[in-house]
């Protein structure tokens, strides 16, 4: 399904951690309902104002009953700084849903034991993923790594089996890498989103154990719909757009040739 673009109303905006926000927006477009792993581009400033490009942000939660889409995002630059100023009732330009996302029905049909591996703000799309997996009768195990303080973990209790955390600082959970929390051999598939070095490493460990994995990539984007070719990556099967052909790819497809 192709993306739609409309003015959307902010329903709520809350501080989750010092640089992490949870933005809830009314998406008045049930014909363009998002699924896990897809994203929207957000713009709370005019077309003629900086920054020039809208910001692609993954779907953290989609509630079809209330047409509410939630974005869990990190303030990292000018765009997200402007988003952070949004208050209830404000209007933003929302374009999406974009990207392939995770094909949850196919994943749930094919695999029993599923691990969700997230790193930092890469954990954001994992919540909608866990919800959709649960709706398909799967109870994934969750392994998340954070720099220091974890966030948005409570909500996994009712959806997940094992939930483990690692931190770089050692203040919470295991002191070390998220990939040290689990053995890929224990799972039928591992679904990963986080910083590129972490995903590359996680995908390599999966490949070593013969466990398939899917990774959700991040790239700078201009159009978000496969038109500008600004987010092209080289894959085993040639040039692919992260925005349109991805962001979800088989680990072997994007990292396989490097291992």
């Amino acid at each position: 399904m192709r993306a739609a673009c409309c003015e959307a109303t902010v329903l709520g905006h809350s501080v989750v951690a010092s640089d992490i926000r949870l933005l809830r927006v009314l998406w008045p477009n049930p014909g363009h309902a998002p699924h896990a792993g897809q994203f929207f581009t957000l713009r709370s400033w005019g077309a003629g104002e900086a920054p020039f490009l809208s910001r692609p942000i993954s779907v953290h939660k989609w509630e079809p009953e209330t047409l509410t889409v939630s974005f869990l995002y990190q303030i990292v630059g000018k765009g997200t700084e402007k988003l952070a100023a949004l208050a209830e009732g404000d209007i933003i330009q929302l374009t999406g849903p974009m990207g392939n996302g995770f094909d949850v029905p196919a994943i749930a049909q094919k695999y029993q034991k599923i691990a969700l591996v997230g790193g930092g703000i890469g954990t954001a799309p994992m919540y909608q993923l866990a919800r959709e997996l649960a709706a398909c009768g799967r109870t994934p195990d969750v392994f998340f790594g954070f720099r220091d303080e974890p966030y948005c973990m409570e909500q996994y209790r009712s959806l997940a089996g094992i939930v483990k955390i690692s931190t770089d600082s050692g203040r919470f959970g295991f002191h070390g890498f998220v990939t040290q929390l689990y053995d890929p051999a224990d799972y039928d598939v591992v679904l990963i989103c986080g910083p590129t070095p972490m995903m590359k490493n996680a995908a390599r460990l999966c490949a070593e154990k013969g466990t398939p994995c899917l990774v959700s990539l991040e790239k700078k984007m201009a159009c978000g719909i496969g038109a500008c070719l600004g987010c092209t990556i080289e894959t085993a099967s040639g040039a692919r757009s992260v925005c349109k052909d991805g962001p979800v790819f088989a680990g072997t497809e994007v990292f396989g040739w490097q291992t």
Partner: protein
Amino acid sequence: MADLTTNLLGFQMNSPIIGASGTVGYGVEYEDLADFSKIGGISGKGLTLHGQFGNKGERLWETPSGLINSIGLQNPGVQHFIDVELHEMLTLKQQYGTVVIANLGGHSEEEYVEGAALLNDSAVDIIELNISCPNVKQGGMAYGVKADAAGEVVRMVRAVCKKPLMVKLSPQAENIPEMCKAVEAAGADAISLTNTFQACAIDLEKRRPVFDNIFAGLSGPAVRPIALRMVWQAVGAVQIPVVGLGGIATGRDALEFIMAGAAAVQVGAANFANPRAMETIADEMAAWMDAHGVASLEEIRGCAR
């Protein structure tokens, strides 16, 4: 309601707004986002004879009021375009009357000629000859700097090309009026300008240029006044239609180019800031014309000269 319909090289367009090559894919990507009944044409992603991956490394970099890109003409090749992407463009044409423009780049004169010959038997309406891509080594912009080199490649393509031929010029041309005259004398049916402006960015943390090619192409509102100056010069230099582009983001911007004498305009980077930019610009043009008692673009085209 003001009449925006525009005739370009014999093709009747819904409006003077054309989606600029490289920013709108092959049009269909925007089908659910944009109102094509208000869009005159689409210039597809720049093609090369054999297709190519494009540039490695960083491809996008935001600037104040613009964007530097280093895509490097990633494309599936002319034959693949004819077999696949062109059919998608034609569905837009059938449904909305969108004029189909194939943008053709090349690495050598022979490649340009062969590509144009392949397109002869296709359903493409207009060929936009891209002698101005700043992101491809050997070719592309090389022909866009020197008027005699540009004239030569246009002459060779003209000899085989049966389609209306629009030549897209680079702002890096040594002399815009001379370049325009050379291209007209070589048989071009129209001129479009400008392509992106050669630019550079340095990543402070890496202490390296952002782009593998060091230089890349700047577009967006930042370049608009310079592009408008060049369009003004082009209109003064030739008799053939001039299609203006460079940072057009509002109806007022587009009207400036029309008043400078542009036959039509292209909208590029603005599509990234607002996926409905093309129809918004058309609406804003019509609203301004209505408010000022202007019934058609003919009444104001070139009026500022």
